[in-house]
């Protein structure tokens, strides 16, 4: 049966049944199908299908699929989704039925950069899993934007428990975890770098995104491989109803997204691109830009099969060119030197949805993901130019191949199981340098390879007041050849001084194997229909870590796989939560607490040399750590003034555990991690003045991040040197910032498809120079101290957004 709506009528069309009713259960019937947007055909993730007057129902999965078993008497169901009109259906329950449901958007007006129109509800009552945040592109567009450009990373940073090392730094830290502990998935493909322009912008074009879910508390067993959070981003499928587009023209870059049916209601495409142009403000010999392209193809093959193919390609390019006339042997030659630094992310996913029955859904995905960077320099002629570099090409690549299968069995409205297997092949090629210069050797460090196999099982069940989401994942990891593994003298430290040789491993030969069970458990207890208590715990293993000991992660930091010297990171987290909604859900309140332990996290020796380091393990030391915190959040959903306020108290500490005790940092005592920021406050407010005008305000405050300061000086052979405090014993001043935006939605001509809106405002309204780092120098017999701020003032912005 399919249901569509006209302006004032509900049309029900009966489809052929998929299965006959079970004769053993004559009075039970299954309805199943997909829930989608009526206007675009876009499937809706997390839409609720509930039996009217009864506390039972299901939500659509990440492909919009639902399955609900009903008693014959339960013939009225309600389907709801945020921002869409709730509908009620009366069913004639005599057979199992396939019912594809289309929901009509609540507000068909232009909805981009609308700060206050959308009906928001951030209630945490329904989710069994504590510490989850669900967002869509409207939420992103209504949130703080840098230069008026909506950005996923900045929205993540406005959530309780999420922080960063400072403005413009790459990635984000979740509940005391490093940035490499976030599993960032774009249509299930993992991404290794989520930033453009050294961290100023995220790599995702918001116009192309359908749904974002951040798991920072408990994490379902189907996810693994990263220890602290999962950011699950799903691209839109593209409208299967009509051709449409949207985009924006901003100060720094522009974006355009086109989507439409290839065959109406059957197949669709989406293509989305961005390109920056701020290099036009720079010298013509300096090149700084980024670009990205997302594309997706969706094909509903038949009622039981659907195919998706999607891809992403993004690149950042920085470069400069030197041109010079050089006199040589009495002849003037024109010489040119070009230096280029480029980093790229690429992903490709093919996914196949299959319905084995109206209760069993399967998805199989084949995924490729690649992150690489290139630094190259080219000189024409034989003459070295002033400031020019040697001719060389330096590359580094991290690649994943993934094949995974996920099955969901909807046993009854209160019970669901998910199970599957995830297989990943890793290949990291850390450094390869091809050089034409005599003073720079050719370098090709051995690639790291590994295989990870992870079957999982999830059991989701609810009773009258108690709900359970539990699971178990088993991760089997093998570091494999071909590889030459450096050997160190036994009994001593792993250091360049104790290298005694190397062992060669053949292709696919196992060098080191690790395995372990990862239990996941989440409980929710409904104290009333407006109050819930939650409890959860999980364990995660992480087999790949980012090697970076700088204040901010850099694009040329390298990824390192677990091997005989670097054990997998193991994280256990325990969390407890309380959520409360006021009457009519006008306000949603939540309080979450957590305690988290880290084992075998990477730390760096005093004075570690990581740059072009073949034996990187000789510069690392294992560490353990802990993090704990409490996160309070309140959301206001109704009225012209809407918004959210959250406060986080958290601590994150580390303690090195070197075999050779003198390698320990701070002599083996606990010290604050680089992103230990005890107090964080975020305020987001939107006020709708009238149909056309709205204003938005964002404010953030965070305790300054830890740093190591000089504590004295000494003399070595007549030269002055500093002594330094314990690692991270001091802090930079606290940071805060306010952004203000005004949004104008032109009502325009209702007869045309073109809808435009303007967004303008000020980023960093009062020009706060937040300290990113400090450094001290000794100059002219004087100690001088400097502060570095990434942003030095208030930045006005204006963006024109359109939709057609």
């Amino acid at each position, binding site marked *: 049966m399919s249901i569509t709506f006209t302006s004032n009528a509900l049309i029900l069309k009966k489809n052929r049944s998929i299965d006959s009713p079970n004769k053993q259960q004559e009075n039970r019937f299954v309805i199943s199908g997909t829930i989608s947007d009526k206007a675009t055909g876009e499937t809706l993730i997390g839409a609720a299908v509930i039996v009217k007057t009864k506390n039972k129902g299901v939500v659509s999965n990440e492909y919009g699929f639902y399955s609900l078993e009903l008693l014959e008497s339960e013939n009225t169901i309600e389907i709801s989704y945020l921002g869409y009109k709730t509908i009620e259906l009366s069913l004639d329950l005599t057979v199992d039925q396939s019912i594809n449901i289309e929901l009509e958007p609540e507000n068909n007006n232009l909805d981009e950069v609308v700060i206050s129109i959308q009906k928001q509800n951030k209630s945490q009552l329904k989710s069994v899993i504590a510490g989850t945040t669900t967002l869509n592109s409207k939420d992103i567009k209504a949130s703080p934007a840098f230069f008026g450009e909506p950005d996923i990373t900045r929205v993540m940073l406005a959530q309780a428990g999420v922080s960063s090392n400072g403005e413009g730094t790459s990635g984000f830290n979740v509940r005391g975890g490093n940035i490499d502990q976030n599993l960032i998935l774009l249509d299930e493909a993992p991404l290794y770098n989520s930033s453009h322009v050294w961290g100023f912008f995220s790599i995702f074009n918001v116009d192309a995104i359908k749904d974002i879910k951040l798991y920072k508390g408990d994490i379902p067993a189907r996810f693994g491989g990263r220890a602290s959070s999962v950011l699950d981003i799903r691209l839109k499928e593209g409208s299967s109803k009509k051709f449409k587009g949207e985009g924006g023209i901003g100060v720094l870059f522009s974006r355009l997204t086109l989507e439409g049916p290839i065959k109406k209601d059957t197949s669709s495409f989406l293509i989305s691109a961005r390109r920056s142009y701020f290099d036009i403000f720079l010298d013509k010999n300096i090149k700084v830009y980024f670009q990205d392209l997302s594309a997706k193809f969706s094909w509903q093959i038949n009622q039981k099969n659907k195919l998706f193919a999607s891809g992403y390609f993004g690149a950042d390019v920085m470069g400069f060119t030197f041109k010079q006339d050089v006199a040589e042997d009495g002849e003037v030659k024109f010489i040119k030197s070009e230096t280029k630094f480029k980093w790229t992310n690429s992903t490709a996913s093919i996914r196949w949805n299959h319905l084995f029955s109206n209760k069993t859904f399967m998805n199989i995905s084949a995924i490729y993901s690649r992150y690489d960077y290139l630094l190259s320099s080219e000189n024409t002629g034989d003459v070295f130019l002033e400031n020019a*570099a040697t001719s060389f090409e330096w590359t580094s690549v991290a690649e994943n191949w993934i094949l995974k299968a996920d099955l969901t069995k909807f046993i009854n409205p209160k019970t669901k199981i998910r199970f599957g297997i995830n297989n990943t092949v890793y290949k990291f090629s850390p450094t390869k340098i091809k050089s034409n210069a005599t003073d*720079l050797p050719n370098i090709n460090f051995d690639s790291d390879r590994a295989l990870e196999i992870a079957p999982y099982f999830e059991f989701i069940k609810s009773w009258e007041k108690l709900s359970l989401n539990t699971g178990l994942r088993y991760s089997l990891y093998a570091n494999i050849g071909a590889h030459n593994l450096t050997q160190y003298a036994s009994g001593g430290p792993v*250091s360049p001084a104790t290298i005694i040789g190397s062992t060669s491993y053949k292709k696919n030969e196992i060098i080191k194997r690790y395995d372990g069970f990862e239990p996941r458990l989440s409980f929710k207890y409904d104290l009333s229909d407006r109050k819930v208590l939650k409890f959860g715990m999980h364990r995660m293993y992480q087999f790949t870590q980012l090697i970076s000991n700088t204040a*901010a992660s850099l694009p040329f930091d390298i990824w390192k796989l677990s091997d005989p010297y670097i054990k997998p990171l193991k994280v256990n987290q325990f969390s407890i939560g309380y959520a409360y909604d006021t009457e009519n859900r006008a306000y949603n309140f939540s309080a979450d607490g957590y305690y988290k332990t880290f084992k075998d996290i990477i730390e760096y020796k005093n004075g570690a040399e990581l740059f072009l380091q073949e034996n990187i393990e000789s510069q690392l030391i294992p560490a353990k750590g802990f993090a704990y915190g409490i996160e309070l959040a309140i959301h206001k959903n109704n009225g012209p003034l809407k918004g959210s306020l959250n406060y986080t108290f958290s601590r994150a500490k580390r303690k090195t555990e070197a075999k050779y005790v003198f390698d320990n940092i701070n002599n083996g005592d606990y010290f604050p991690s680089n992103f230990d920021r005890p107090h964080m406050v975020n305020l987001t407010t939107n006020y709708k003045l009238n149909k056309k005008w709205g204003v938005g305000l964002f404010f953030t405050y965070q305790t300054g991040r830890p740093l190591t300061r000089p504590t*004295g000086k000494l003399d070595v052979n007549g030269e002055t040197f500093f*002594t330094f*405090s314990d690692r*991270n014993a001091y802090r930079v001043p606290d940071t805060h910032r306010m952004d203000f935006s005004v949004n104008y939605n032109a009502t325009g001509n209702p007869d045309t498809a073109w809808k435009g809106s303007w967004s303008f405002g000020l980023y960093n309204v009062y020009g706060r120079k937040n300290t990113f780092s400090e450094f001290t120098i000794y100059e002219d017999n004087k100690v001088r101290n400097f502060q570095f701020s990434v942003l030095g003032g208030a930045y006005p912005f204006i963006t024109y957004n359109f939709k057609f």
Partner: protein
Amino acid sequence: MKQLKIIPLILACMLFTQCVKEIPVEDNFEAEIVIVGQLLNDTNHCEVRVQESVSLFNTEFNGIESASISVYSENATGENLLITNAFTEQGNGSYSSNLPIDPVSGDYYWIEVLLEDGRVFMSEKTKLKPVVTINSITKRLGFDDSTLYNFIFSDPVDENNFYILRVLFGEDPITIAASDVVFNGNETASIEVENYYYNQTVLVKAKMQNVNYFTYQYYINLLSQSNTNNGDFSPELLFAPPSVNLLGNIVEKHTNRRVLGVFTVAYTSEKIVNL
């Protein structure tokens, strides 16, 4: 090769450098004991300097007087010997052994320093590695009219080696710390030093020591601080790793904690050429 790292950092700094401002220096003084000693065949004496760090605002340094210093060795048979504990104070916390010491290749050496307040500091046992001779020195034109001097030697194949190279170009001193990771076992290994004397002949005096890892790491930290702390703003500072203390192989006996400084045992080879 460091230029490879600097290039992208310079690009990043084109975006950022206007956001640097000078701020007041804070006095977070914590006193630290610093012990730097060496036993080299070219001086034949053990020399040790003991000092306590001073506040960033002090103009004088604080050499520690009246320390008792002993030098020990362990020979190939595992026998521990007190070489000498007779040292002469030379002022400003500097001490020199009264008698010459002839260190033996393959033996281990260490020092013990007893302060007047009863605190005892020891260096770890440090092996004297065989001499590595500088065979020749060459020069060629580099970038920006610079000159690249190559100090060529034969790197021992059987173990990892670490070198401290001190070069005097006329009166212009340069110190380099290098490991043999790139050129291990190469019979014509070379350490490259950049300077600016291509069009003129200069007296090049080079001294090279085959040192232990801790001495190498101490000098890496020393040179790193020397580059970053002295002079103007550098783009690298924006992305600098954590500040590094000058830690080597000295340990406070009672607390078993590493303190600042290093004790170096090494043979020195020297080459002097007009180039």
